[in-house]
């Protein structure tokens, strides 16, 4: 079937054995769902726990003197404020304040670990090589897999291996042995649920995944469920909800820019972003609830009183809500909860309204 060579993650043979249906995603042949289907995988994640293969994401380690201030020159996040073992969400911005990628940064004892998107990891590496001083080592950890265990049962599963991991705070990291395998664990995820992301050497990835799948709470879930889960959780998907044409302010990501960075700037596009913080931006990302049952997909035109005021950037069906949901950008004047909109689906205006994000309450583990 393959006409183009697709990359495969270390878990590909396991997905195959589990009966996955595959889809091309960011150059990878990835499981979109298993025989149980997207709906069942989504709902199982919300009620128990699921195992996701996210090894297509890029894992990059920065090491060297001044790595923290050097990275801060590329992102608006407060990296200097991280304690060892803490992680933070931020973005690579460009001079126009647009977003080149969004990423997670974890501070290790003598290094920073980044997790970047699969589709942008090559350009991110070039960006880092161009912009970081030469004395900072940029190590693309190509021989590592990344597994996500997400859902309310994730904590008890992981705690059976190592009880202390139950008490990790959301957005912190630890080194651990799970099933006898050395892992780097963070308490984080992309589903709105409590959960862990586990970085492991590729050679041990299948062994770890198989061990996790023997746990009665855990079933495999694919990219389809990952997408519907993150949409319900109001989380951005790079290349869809955020890209080089959207600023963190427009995208509603101001929470990820620390106070010191807002004042001092010192990252690409700081002037534009600081001005938008002070004066507002012309458009804003919002949650959108169609009133009928027709999903409104990405690129759906948004109108108010017959006038185009925006566009849907992610849209589909929210299995936990049993109805269609969407996110998109609207003119700031309409970016308030309850604002009435029309979504133009198959040339027919369909009523919808702006709602606060997330669509479901998030259940991150706070200490």
């Amino acid at each position: 079937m393959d006409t183009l060579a697709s990359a495969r993650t270390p878990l590909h043979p396991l997905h195959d054995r589990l009966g996955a249906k595959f889809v091309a995603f960011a150059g990878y042949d990835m499981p979109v769902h298993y025989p149980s289907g997207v709906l069942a995988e989504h709902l199982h994640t919300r009620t128990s726990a699921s195992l996701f293969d996210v090894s297509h994401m890029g894992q990059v380690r920065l090491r060297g003197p001044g790595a923290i201030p050097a990275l801060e020159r590329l992102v608006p996040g407060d990296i200097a404020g991280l304690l060892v073992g803490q992680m933070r969400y931020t973005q690579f911005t460009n001079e126009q304040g647009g977003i080149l990628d969004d990423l997670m940064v974890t501070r290790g004892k003598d290094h920073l670990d980044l997790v970047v998107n699969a589709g942008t990891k090559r350009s991110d590496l070039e960006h880092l090589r161009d912009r970081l001083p030469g004395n900072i080592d940029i190590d693309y950890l190509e021989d590592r897999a990344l597994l996500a265990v997400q859902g309310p049962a994730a904590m008890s599963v992981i705690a059976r291996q190592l009880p202390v991991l139950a008490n990790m705070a959301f957005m912190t990291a630890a080194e651990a042995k799970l099933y006898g395998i050395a892992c780097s664990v963070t308490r984080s995820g992309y589903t709105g649920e409590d959960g862990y992301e586990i970085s492991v050497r590729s050679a041990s990835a299948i062994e770890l995944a198989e061990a996790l799948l023997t746990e009665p709470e855990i079933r495999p879930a694919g990219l389809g469920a990952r997408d519907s889960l993150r949409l319900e959780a109001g989380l951005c998907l790079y290349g869809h909800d955020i890209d080089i044409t959207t600023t963190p302010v427009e995208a509603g990501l101001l929470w990820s820019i620390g106070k010191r960075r807002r004042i001092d700037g010192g990252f690409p596009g700081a002037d534009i972003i600081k001005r938008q913080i002070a004066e507002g931006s012309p458009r804003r990302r919002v949650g959108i609830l169609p009133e009928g049952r027709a999903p409104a997909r990405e690129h759906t035109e948004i109108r108010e009183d017959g006038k185009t005021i925006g566009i849907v950037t992610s849209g589909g069906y929210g299995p936990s809500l049993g109805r269609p949901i969407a996110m998109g950008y609207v003119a700031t004047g309409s970016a308030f909860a309850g604002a009435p909109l029309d979504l133009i689906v198959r040339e027919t205006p369909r009523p919808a309204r702006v709602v606060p994000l997330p669509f479901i309450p998030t259940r991150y583990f706070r200490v």
Partner: protein
Amino acid sequence: MTELHYAESHEWVRLEGEIATVGISVFAQEQLGDVVYVELPAVGATVTKGNNIAVVESVKAASEIYAPVSGTVVEVNAAIVDNPGLINEQPLSEGWFFKIKISALPEVETLLDEAAYTALVGGTH
């Protein structure tokens, strides 16, 4: 069971006189995954073979359903609007979409029989 005919666009047709009952194939619903929304044509609508007249949406994507024959829509299946999962569970029976009173019976000859359709979708049925 009455023999099924198929369009290359993955609709099935069951003929009873000049009435064609139309649904989507087992293969088509497997490709779609969990169906969550259906939009059906209006009863009384005149439809032309090959034109898109209905929409079926899974969690991930929307797909169009084409008229496998020309004619007039005489009945639609409200049950799949209320419970789109029927299309996955019973695609060849309870998950039917609509019935068309055929205006040009010879068009039926252009449809595929079961064996030809199975070959088209690579023998996976």
